[in-house]
């Protein structure tokens, strides 16, 4: 693996070396290393699609799976399906992410469809980072889709971050929760230049006591555009909270389309949305500490997306 590929791996998966535990590294459409462990098995798909199946045995604790994707070719497009089967009462960390470095003039595109089948009582922390670089005029496009099926009393925490270099993204996350299941989503998006980001969540709370807490923070600068959508359906006694908080700068545009549907009198659903520029008093406060206006803005954005 060359220096560029190592840099991308570090950006998307904080990997400086071969990770501990199970992993699968995908580079320009080819496998570039894989390890299964006693309790976590990684296999090629058998349905003809590109991608892998990951089987995590019941009661697996304190183990992690890294599945980063690196693309350094221009004019390269791929669609990858990764399915996760997480056994009952497992407690694991899954780190995914995609880094594209495109020096050419043609588009590079990665579409990753991740499907999670989460067993009863299992806990999963899923960290996903998307990063693009390259000084060519070719676009970096990423369209991640995340499909989550949660059995009773399971917990899924998703941290999704897209900070730099992705020209266009269309993110679709759907989740179906059974009784007592909890879904927590923390999404951070920064767009600049002429970038476009669309993110959409559809959550069905089907089991009694199921809950979702979905927070999206984003900053749109320059001429970039963002659209946030969230649809929470409370189909039983359940609780749902979604929050879209966006800072808008320059000539950017942000649209928030929240949707709540309560199909049961005991469904408690809340949505909060705030879009606005950086408050002038925040900048002034940091200037009284000796920061310039630009430094103050940078600190406020850094904090907001931290």
């Amino acid at each position: 693996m060359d220096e560029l590929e190592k840099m991308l791996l570090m950006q998307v998966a904080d990997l400086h070396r071969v990770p501990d535990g199970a992993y699968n590294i995908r580079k320009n459409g080819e496998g570039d290393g894989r390890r299964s462990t006693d309790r976590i098995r990684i296999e090629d798909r058998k349905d003809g699609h590109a991608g892998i199946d990951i089987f995590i045995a019941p009661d697996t604790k304190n183990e992690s799976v890294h599945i980063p994707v690196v693309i350094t070719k221009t004019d390269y497009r791929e669609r990858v399906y990764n399915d996760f089967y997480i056994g009952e009462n497992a407690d694991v960390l899954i780190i995914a992410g995609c880094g594209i470095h495109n020096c050419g003039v043609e588009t590079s595109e990665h579409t990753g469809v991740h499907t999670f089948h989460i067993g009863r009582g299992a806990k999963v922390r899923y960290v996903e980072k998307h990063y693009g670089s390259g000084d060519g005029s070719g676009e970096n496009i990423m369209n991640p889709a995340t499909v989550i099926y949660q059995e009773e009393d399971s917990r899924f925490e998703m941290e999704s971050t897209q900070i730099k270099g992705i020209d266009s993204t269309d993110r679709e996350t759907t989740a179906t929760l059974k009784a007592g299941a909890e879904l927590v989503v923390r999404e951070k998006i920064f767009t600049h230049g002429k970038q476009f980001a669309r993110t959409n969540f559809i959550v069905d709370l089907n089991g009694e006591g199921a809950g979702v807490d979905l927070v999206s923070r984003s900053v749109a600068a320059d001429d970039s555009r963002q659209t946030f959508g969230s649809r929470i359906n409370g189909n039983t006694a359940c609780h749902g909270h979604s929050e879209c908080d966006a800072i808008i700068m320059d000539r950017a545009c942000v649209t928030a389309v929240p949707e709540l549907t309560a199909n049961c009198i005991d469904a408690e659903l809340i949505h909060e949305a705030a879009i606005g520029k950086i408050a002038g008093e925040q900048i002034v406060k940091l200037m009284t500490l000796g920061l310039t206006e630009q430094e103050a803005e940078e600190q406020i954005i850094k904090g907001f997306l931290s």
Partner: protein
Amino acid sequence: MLELQNITFEVEENGQTKRILSDVSLTIDERFVAITGPNGSGKSTLAKIIAGILTPTGGKLLFNGEDITPLSVTERARRGISFAFQQPVRFKGITVKDLISLAAGKHITVGEACGYLSEVGLCARDYIDREVNASLSGGELKRIEIATVLARGTSLSVFDEPEAGIDLWSFQNLISVFEKMYAKSQGSIVIISHQERILNIADKIVVLSAGRIERVGTREEILPSLLGTSACRALTDKLS
């Protein structure tokens, strides 16, 4: 030393010019200078003019002999002027430690941050990683605001009504913070206040009324005469 020369501040309101400050001239070189007066007398406006947040429509400010009137908030901060807001600003995502580090102008250790927080009566362990957001009470924010000024240790610190909102913390502690701050920085501390116990530590008291300096003098000269005046009626109303 800060010198205000004939400071005037006017605003346009409904097509009419309204004068907030008229011809305010003042020298600040003492340890503690208190600026007091009834609501609407122009105290906070004067404090913001010193920090550079507002630009006077007339007059000049000299700081250590340099004309700082055209300087920005940043430039004044870098020359050694600090300002504590009457209503501290909230930030989503910026932690108490981040804010104190920014104030100190360098990365500070947890131990150093704890030192500043302890001085304002906050248990550092509970606060250091908390965001400076709406989850903090007004009183907590106010003390964190004071801690940021402590961390700067500049030669001029301006506090706009520091006592407001710190009801659960004693005034004596606040006064001891000011005394320690002076011992460390040897700089002047300007306090906008209605609080008699704060006025009581002032080396100089400035009484503003309707945008003008009504009186200036030592604590001994001014404080007794404040009792029973319109300025002090407002003050005693607030205290009662």
